[in-house]
């Protein structure tokens, strides 16, 4: 993953450099132990992670997508059911619903990129079995209003917290609001490991017990299979790496927050900076700005050695795979507008002050050139 950018969008090599020795040691120990699947490292990480988020249980699974899928399967969601999520998310937010046999229903988003509670209230039907708000970029959704919309119903909230490990709303960590939540440990995430991994958090014992079976072939003991299940386990190696990285998470989060603060104060007025609710403490998995001349700005930044990305240029409801769902251009005006205007700036703990300044100065120089 070498790049010619002086400010690459991500730098995974640097991300793992600080922990390289510890990681190398733990892989060696696990290599020696001969215990590679569902051993002590997974149990330990699950305990640590549940403690960190503030839930009773955490369950390590193969990846974040599987985490969403397994939660829905444990809740009995299937054909004929509807699950409401956001169209501006990563595609896995939708395909996991499709994989259960249920139908994804999309909800418009607000200026924070989160689910719009007012629109949500219009989408509830007798078929709605769950609502999956997405704490996109690590920015908490308006969870209290979403809870208010659903109060008095038996519709469950499943938090898609793939990008939001450590974020808080009203002082409480996301991943502890719904019946269950999903976190991703994909290498690019704030708590990234050396490959695919995911975690489910929940306080619900019944859901916990079900997922523990489902992730491991539906086995209730060595010789009895209670329900046809899946194979979706967090590898021992990845769990051990996650434990190491969890130790540094708060320090890393503080670093990206300070980068975000610099971006926000320097760029406010030039571009639309990320908006959060006052109750929210986001963790900036991405720092997304919005501007009408996004493509020009991106070209300018790339020519100045600054790599940016777009999360995501084509909303889920306009993807080829979503055609059978019957949405079209105009279905979600705010989401569609954001997808045309959004630009993700580099943000990660290993960025140097020089790199941060380069991003800021390059954006300023772009707008200065345009004024002249």
């Amino acid at each position, binding site marked *: 993953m070498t790049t010619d950018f002086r400010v690459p969008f991500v730098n995974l*090599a640097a991300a793992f450099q600080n922990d390289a020795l510890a990681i190398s040691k733990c892989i*060696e120990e696990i290599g020696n132990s001969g215990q590679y699947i569902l051993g002590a490292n997974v149990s330990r990480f699950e305990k640590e992670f549940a403690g960190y988020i503030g839930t009773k249980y955490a369950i390590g699974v193969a990846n974040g997508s599987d985490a969403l899928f397994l939660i829905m399967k444990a809740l009995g969601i299937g054909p004929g059911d509807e699950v409401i999520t956001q169209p501006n998310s990563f*595609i896995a937010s939708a395909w996991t619903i499709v994989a259960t046999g249920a139908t994804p229903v999309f909800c418009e988003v607000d200026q924070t990129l989160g689910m719009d509670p007012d629109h949500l209230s219009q989408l509830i039907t007798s078929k709605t079995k769950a609502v999956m708000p997405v704490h996109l970029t690590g920015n908490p959704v308006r969870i209290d209003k979403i809870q208010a919309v659903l109060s008095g119903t038996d519709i469950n909230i499943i938090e898609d917290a793939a990008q939001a490990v450590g974020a808080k709303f009203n002082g409480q960590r996301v991943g502890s609001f719904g019946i269950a939540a999903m976190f991703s440990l994909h290498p690019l995430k704030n708590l990234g490991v*050396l490959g695919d991994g995911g975690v489910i958090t929940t306080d619900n014992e019944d859901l916990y017990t079900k997922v523990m079976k489902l992730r491991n*072939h539906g086995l209730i003991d060595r010789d009895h299979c209670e329900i046809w299940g899946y194979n979706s386990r967090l*590898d021992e190696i990845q769990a051990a790496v996650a434990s190491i990285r969890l130790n540094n998470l708060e320090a890393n989060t503080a670093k990206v927050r300070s980068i975000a603060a610099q971006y926000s104060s320097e760029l406010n007025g030039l571009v639309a900076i990320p908006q959060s609710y006052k109750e929210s403490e986001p963790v900036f998995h991405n720092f997304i700005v919005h501007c009408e001349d996004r493509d020009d700005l991106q070209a300018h930044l790339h020519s100045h050695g600054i790599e940016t990305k777009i999360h995501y240029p084509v909303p889920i409801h306009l993807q080829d795979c979503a055609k059978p769902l019957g949405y079209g251009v105009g279905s979600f005006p705010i989401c569609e507008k954001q997808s045309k205007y959004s630009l993700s700036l580099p943000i990660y703990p290993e960025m140097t002050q020089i790199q941060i300044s380069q991003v800021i100065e390059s954006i300023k120089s772009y707008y200065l050139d345009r004024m002249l």
Partner: protein
Amino acid sequence: MSKNFLPSQYESDNTFDVQHNYLTQQFSDKDLILEKIREVVANGDFTLGREVDKLEEAFANLVGAKYAIGVGSGTDAIFLSLRALDLKPGDEVITTSFTFYATIGAIVTAGGTPVFCDIEDDFNISVSKIRNLITKKTKAIVPVHWSGRPCEMDEMLMISKEFDIPIIEDACHSILAEYHGQRTGTFGLTGCFSFHPLKNLNVWGDGGIITTNSDEMNLKIRLLRNHGLIDRDHCQVFGYNSRLDTIQAVVANHLLSKIDHITSSRIANAQYLDEGLKEIRGVRVPTRSANIKEVFHIYSFMAENRDSLANFLRENGIDAKVHYPIPMHLQPAAGYLNYKNGDFPETEKAANGTLSLPVHEFVEIKDLDFMISKIKEFYSDNRL
């Protein structure tokens, strides 16, 4: 916390002198692996990285297939193969009840209804009985090359052709196994392999690979394993996330150079056991065939008074195991399929009589002699 129930081979019990689990011995040269993993970490090349590409090419060559596709597990290999066939609810998939849970889990996850077929006395699906099970709804046949012994593929291929029903080979046990000189994983539309830590070719976690000669299946499965994405920003089909980790591909690549030795050791150990066990009254060793190469992921035989023998061997420090005592059609999970005891006499006989002995590359001649002598002792002791 709930206990994690694992496949029996994985329940290592260090009190045995002759164990099924050999992983601590196997990776004595792990420094080479660690060096490569450090490179991956230094490059940040974690997801579908170069080591995965390298493994896919080498594995396709090894098996003799056009393509190989690294996936999350052997279970997912079967699931993604069947999913690529676009099963509709009610579609039937013919398979064996004498298998590991994952074969059936994968069929059900793909939307299929498992239709079980009885086995022969070699523990493999009875190909002559498949024909009677075919209906208009049959969309695939999933034979399992149980224990690393290839199924009767000639007749199965004829049936597949006659009825135009694809074969998805569950080759999770059978890396390098051959039927009439051809390697398993190349007969069906796809072949599904597992890299689970106790498979003949294993990694340090979960992993699997799919082999195929079909351009269409190759493309479709590559889409399905990675969210249905045709590029970063475009999703063609709703997919899944099932990728072989790059660091696991490093381990697999390392072991590719050893798989011939691993396989030949297992075969030699099995032949030694065959010789030692075949004359013992109370033991029936499966008939071996000159036309097939078995790779003995599991070494199993039929034993009279099996449970007593198993206890006796375990008391004597031999890690004897049963793969598996309850066939799939009698599992609680299969309740909705309405099978009952007696439906598959050969399968049930096998489940009640089969016993497995350690046969891996680290089992020594003295261990084999010890196991044979203890089995002799058991049956000469008037326990029948």
